[in-house]
C-alpha cells in the first residue's frame, strides 16, 4: 500500500536531481532577527554557505530631502535631527556647518565656545551609540549578560545628555549661529565624574573581549572584508578602520573643535584582522578615546558667548559638509540661493556607503553567522531611507485615519471575514 502511494506522489513534476538548481534563495527580512529596522537581503545559499547576497532597502522612507526644500534653515535643523534616532545630533551639526560655511562668505563666524559644546555632544553621542551597538552585538552572539551590563553603563552617558540638553534622543542643542544651551560648572563636574566611570568600565570590557573565548570564537574569521575590497567598495567609518584603512573625517577633514589643538592629541583607531572581531575592538577602543576627548574638551572649554545672531538669508553657495557620524562618514551637500530656504539639500549616510561591503562580507559565510555580520557594520536604515510619497491610489484608500484601536480590530475582523483563505 505504502509503496503505491509513494509512486503516485513522485510524478515527474519536480524533475530529476541533476536538473535541480544548485543554489537556493532565502529571503532575510524585511522583518528579521538581526535588526530592529526593516531591510531585505536575498541570500543565495549552497547548503549552509552563502554564495551571494542582494540587498534591497527603502522600507523607511519619509521624504526628508524633498521636505527640506520647503522649510527654513532653522526649521530644517529640527527636521534633519529626525533622520535618525541614534545619531541625531551629527545630522544637525552637518547642516549647521554647511549653513555657517555659506554664511562665512559674508564674514559670519560662530562663537568658539559653541563649537566646543557641539563637539562634546557629538562625542557623547558616539559613546552612547557605540555602547548600544556593543550591546546589540553581544545579544546577537547570545551573550546576553554583556548586553545587559553594557546597556547599564550606557545610561550614564544618556543621563549626561539629558542633563545638558533636556532630551534623551533628539538633543536640539544646535542653532544656526551657536548652541541653545550653555554648560554650567556643576554639569562639567558631573560629566568628568561619569566619563571616568565609563572609561574604567570600557577598559574592563575591552579586556574581556580580547581574552574571552565566547566572543572570540563567535566573531573571529567571519564577515571578512579585506582592505583592498574595502577600498574598492568605498567603505567608511569603523567598518573601514577595522579593515586597516586609516580614515576618519575628524582627522582628515577637521570641523568644529577637531580643527583646533585637539587635532594634536587625536588618535585614529585601526585594527587589522578585518573580521567582525576587529570591528568590535575598533568600536570599544573608540569609546575610550571619545571619553578622553570629552574630558580634554571640558578642560579646555573657552569662555565667551554661545550664540551670535546670524543673518536670515544665506548667500548663494554650493557647500559640501563632511562629518564623522558614529557609523562613518556623513555628508550634507547644500545649494543655497540667497533666500532663507535651501534650494537643494542632499544627505548621504554611512550605511548606504557600507551596504555593498556587507553584501561582500556575507559571501562565503554560514547562514547562522549572517545576523552578526549584518549587525557588524552597525546599520541604520532610517538614516539611509529618507523619501517616500504615497501615490498609489489603492494604498491611499487603505489608509486608516483617526481610527481607535477597537475600530481597527473590528475592521481587521471584518476584512478577514470577507477575504477568507487570504494569502499573500
Amino acid at each position, binding site marked *: 500500500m505504502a509503496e503505491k502511494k509513494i509512486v503516485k506522489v513522485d510524478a515527474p513534476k519536480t524533475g530529476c536531481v541533476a536538473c535541480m538548481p544548485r543554489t537556493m534563495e532565502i529571503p532575510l527580512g524585511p522583518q528579521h532577527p538581526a535588526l530592529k529596522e526593516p531591510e531585505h537581503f536575498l541570500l543565495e545559499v549552497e547548503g549552509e554557505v552563502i554564495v551571494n547576497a542582494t540587498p534591497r532597502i527603502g522600507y523607511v522612507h519619509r521624504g526628508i*530631502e524633498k521636505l527640506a526644500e520647503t522649510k527654513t534653515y532653522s526649521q530644517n535643523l529640527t527636521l534633519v535631527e529626525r533622520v535618525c534616532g541614534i545619531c541625531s545630533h551629527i545630522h544637525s551639526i552637518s547642516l549647521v556647518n554647511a549653513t555657517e560655511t555659506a554664511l562665512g562668505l559674508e564674514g559670519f563666524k560662530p562663537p568658539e565656545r559653541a563649537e566646543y559644546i557641539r563637539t562634546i555632544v557629538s562625542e557623547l553621542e558616539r559613546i552612547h551609540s557605540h555602547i548600544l551597538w556593543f550591546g546589540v552585538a553581544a545579544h546577537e552572539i547570545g551573550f546576553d549578560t554583556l548586553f545587559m551590563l553594557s546597556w547599564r553603563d550606557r545610561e550614564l552617558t544618556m543621563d549626561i545628555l539629558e542633563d545638558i540638553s533636556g532630551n534623551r534622543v533628539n538633543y536640539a542643542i544646535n542653532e544656526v549661529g551657536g548652541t541653545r544651551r550653555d554648560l554650567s560648572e556643576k554639569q562639567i563636574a558631573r560629566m568628568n565624574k561619569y566619563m571616568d566611570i565609563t572609561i574604567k568600565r570600557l577598559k574592563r570590557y575591552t579586556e574581556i573581549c580580547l581574552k574571552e573565548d565566547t566572543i572570540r570564537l563567535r566573531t573571529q574569521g567571519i564577515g571578512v572584508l579585506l582592505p583592498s575590497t574595502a577600498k574598492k*567598495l568605498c567603505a567608511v567609518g569603523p567598518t573601514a578602520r577595522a579593515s586597516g584603512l586609516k580614515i576618519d573625517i575628524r582627522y582628515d577633514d577637521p570641523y568644529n573643535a577637531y580643527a583646533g589643538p585637539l587635532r594634536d592629541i587625536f588618535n585614529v583607531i585601526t585594527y587589522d584582522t578585518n573580521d567582525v572581531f576587529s570591528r568590535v575592538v575598533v568600536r570599544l577602543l573608540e569609546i575610550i578615546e571619545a571619553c578622553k576627548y570629552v574630558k580634554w574638551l571640558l578642560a579646555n572649554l573657552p569662555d565667551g558667548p554661545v550664540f551670535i545672531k546670524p543673518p536670515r538669508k544665506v548667500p548663494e553657495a554650493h557647500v559640501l559638509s563632511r562629518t564623522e557620524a558614529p557609523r562613518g562618514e556623513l555628508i550634507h551637500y547644500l545649494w543655497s540661493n540667497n533666500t532663507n530656504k535651501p534650494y537643494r539639500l542632499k544627505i548621504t549616510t554611512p550605511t548606504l*556607503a557600507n551596504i555593498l561591503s556587507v553584501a561582500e562580507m556575507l559571501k562565503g559565510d554560514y547562514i547562522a553567522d549572517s545576523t552578526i555580520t549584518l549587525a557588524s557594520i552597525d546599520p541604520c536604515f532610517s538614516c539611509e531611507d529618507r523619501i517616500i510619497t504615497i*501615490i498609489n491610489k489603492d494604498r491611499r484608500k487603505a489608509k486608516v485615519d483617526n481610527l481607535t484601536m477597537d475600530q481597527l480590530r473590528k475592521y481587521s475582523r471584518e476584512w478577514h471575514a470577507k477575504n477568507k483563505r487570504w494569502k499573500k
Partner: protein
Amino acid sequence: MSDLKREQQVVDALKSHFGEKLLSIETTFPRRIDCTVKDPDHLEVFKFAKEKWKAWHLIAISSVDTPDGVIAAVYHFDIVPPHGTETAITLNLRVDAPNREKAEITSAVSVIPGAQFFERETHDLMGIYFKGHPQLDRLILPDDFPDNVHPLRKDFLLEIQKEEAAKKAARAARAKK
C-alpha cells in the same frame, strides 16, 4: 591652511593635464574644489586621480535639478586622500545631463565599483540614467511606484508646495483687486 596653496596645486595639475576639457574649476572653501566637465570626461578625471594621488574614495553622488532646468550629477571624490598628518582634498565634480527627458550620464562603476548604490539611488530619485551600470533597478522607492516620476525633480510638487503656490496665487489676485 586657509591660503589654499595645496588646493591651487591640485587645480594646476588638473588644468595642465585636461586643458579645455574642464568647463570650469574654482576653489571657494578650504579643502574643496568645484569643477564641471562634460559627460564621459569624469571617468578620465577619476583615472588620472587614481594614478597621480592614489585616490580611491568616492564619498557620494548628489543630484541637482538646477535653477536653469538642467539635471546634474555631482560626484564627491577625495581627489587627494589623507596622508600622514595632511588633510584630504575633496573634488565636487559636476556632470550635466544633455536634456531633461532623456538624462543620460556614463556610469562610473567601471572605474569605481563602490559607486553602484549611489548611482542607483540617484537614478531612482532624480531620474538620471547611468549608461553601462550593471544593475540599474529600483533601490529606494517602492516597486509599484509609477515610472518616469522622480520625486526630487523640481516639477514634482509636494502637497505642501501645492498649497503654498495656491496661497501665493490667491494673494496676488487679491493684490490686483
